[in-house]
């Protein structure tokens, strides 16, 4: 199995601790070696670009440079971190002048960006390493009779020019994982819509309405729960669920699991190790 530089991102280190716990547990169970580099910093979630593009690029080139030193591809569990890191790589690898400019900045700290490592999402790695069939073979507690709404959110799929793991208009990675676990994917028309997280501070009502509509779509498609590869989507869908549903005139409880939590249950990992007790909307497993 592969060895990767693990980039958990701020959410998994803080407000989405259960994502960190479940990722580590699943990786251990499957024999994927995750090496967390202590030098990794926050990616700036894209908003650093609003301070100054050079700051955004330099901070993330620094992150990439530390992974390059170890010779390890980066694996992250946050979709926004994924986009920000991949975008930095994309821009620097396709513009020699820009790369030189950024390397001049990095040289202040004795670092260099070369472009030798890739950045992947944890659930991409699950499919790359095991495939649907390989995952199915490792399932000890199939999630039979469970209808799961695959909620992709934005930054695992868009823009395709930068993410590129699967077609952004019809991704299937989550459906494949859900099926491999023995559950049934119930995909609805909002599986690729935005949860509004990144406008939460300037426009909370808008953000909550979008999240409410997504929850409603999952409910209408008969989902018993939702799963998402993004901790920021998760924060809106789970922690802010009652507020979001209020915005669309609804009130119900729909459990939302991080992808590694769902995978972990099927692999027979004890729920506590998956941090399921931390989800705001209770999960009955």
């Amino acid at each position, binding site marked *: 199995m592969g060895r990767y530089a693990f980039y958990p991102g701020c*959410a998994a*280190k*803080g*407000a*989405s*601790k*259960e994502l960190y716990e479940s990722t580590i547990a699943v990786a251990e169970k499957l024999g994927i070696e995750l090496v967390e580099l*202590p*030098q990794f*910093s*926050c990616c*700036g*979630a*894209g*908003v*650093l*670009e*609003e*301070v*100054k*593009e*050079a*700051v955004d*690029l*330099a*901070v993330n080139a*620094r992150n990439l440079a530390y992974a390059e030193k170890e010779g390890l591809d980066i694996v992250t569990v946050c979709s926004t971190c994924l*986009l920000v890191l991949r975008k930095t790589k994309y821009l620097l690898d396709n513009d020699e002048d820009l790369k030189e*400019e950024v390397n001049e*900045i990095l040289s*202040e*700290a004795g*670092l260099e960006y070369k472009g030798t490592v890739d950045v992947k999402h944890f659930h991409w790695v699950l499919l790359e390493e095991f495939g649907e069939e390989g995952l199915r073979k490792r399932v000890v507690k199939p999630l039979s009779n469970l209808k799961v709404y695959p909620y992709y959110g*934005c*930054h695992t799929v*868009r*823009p395709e*020019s930068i993410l590129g793991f699967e*077609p*952004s*208009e*019809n991704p299937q990675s989550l459906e494949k994982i859900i099926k491999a676990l023995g559950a049934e994917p119930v995909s609805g028309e909002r599986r690729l819509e*935005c949860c*509004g*997280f*990144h*406008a939460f*501070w*300037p*426009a*909370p009502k*808008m*953000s909550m309405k*979008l999240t409410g509509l997504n929850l409603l779509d999952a409910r209408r498609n008969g989902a018993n729960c939702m799963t998402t590869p993004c901790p920021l989507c998760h924060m809106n869908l789970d*922690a*802010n669920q009652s*507020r979001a549903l209020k915005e669309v005139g609804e009130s119900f409880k729909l459990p939302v699991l991080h992808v590694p939590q769902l995978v972990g249950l099927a692999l027979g990992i004890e729920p506590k190790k998956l941090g399921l*007790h*931390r989800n*705001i909307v209770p999960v009955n497993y």
Partner: protein
Amino acid sequence: MEKREVLFRIKRFNPKKDEKPYFQEYKLTVPKGMTVLEALQQIKDTQDPTLAFRAFCRSAICGSCAVKVNGFPKLACKTQIFNELDKFGTDTLTLEPLDNMEIIRDLIVDWDKPFKRMEEMKPWLVPDPEVVPKTLDEESRVYPNELKKFDSFTDCILCTSCFSSCTATQIDENYGGPFQLARVYRFAVDPRDALKAERSKIGYAFDMWNCVRCNKCADVCPKHISPVDGIMKLRGLSIDVGLKDNPGARHVMAFYKSLLESGMLNEVLLPLRTKGIKGVLENLPVGIKMILRGKAHSPVMKPIGEHETLIKVMKAAMEVE
């Protein structure tokens, strides 16, 4: 040549006689390489002369033929049918008019709303008298490094694909729109323009901070422009010209501060730093639940490994031109 029998489900609507839009089905034998526009023309010529769609240049440059193909905005003239069928594993192609605009008839939408919005945002050059010569005898030069900042945004063909797919446009009536805001940015960094970064105040007035960064605009643009990038840079310019006392700008500075302090985002202080006491109170019920479930870190954070290299890099980056 490879051929396939394709079922076209086309959304029809004539506001003069139909109560609401409905789907009509047509069957067509499609050879490999045929575009959506060629198919539409063939259906109109051989099966249904009443079918209405807009098209002109057939070369992906006039921007008139954008429609939704299996749910996503595309230029009909540059979209090959086989590629779309393969992507969705189907032999059915669903064609609909673009979203966020009124339907005039069938696949033709009314562009008044997005274009009027663009006009309100003044996306034209206001010559800077210190830069632009008074007569045509002299040239007004733009150097390659200056052009690089806005070059891609000049490729916009006003097809409104991004406007159709924009999440913020769907929800916020006052939102400027992706191609419109990107155009404001385009002039804000044009060295010949007199208003320059001050133009970001126009973006501010048109809710640019409400962009949810869903990146749909970047994904659907047939000219590979990324309006969202222009919008984010326009936000940055607004901070530069002093629009700092708002949640969007404060949120940005909270990240910057966190990175300098510890290298990781201080989530616990984020509500306070972004929205002050109001931010704390609004999020208190959720915050308490999260604390009770052990989802909050200490407000004082331990710095990351080799934090000093991050500080050096950030400071050096701030000094770059």
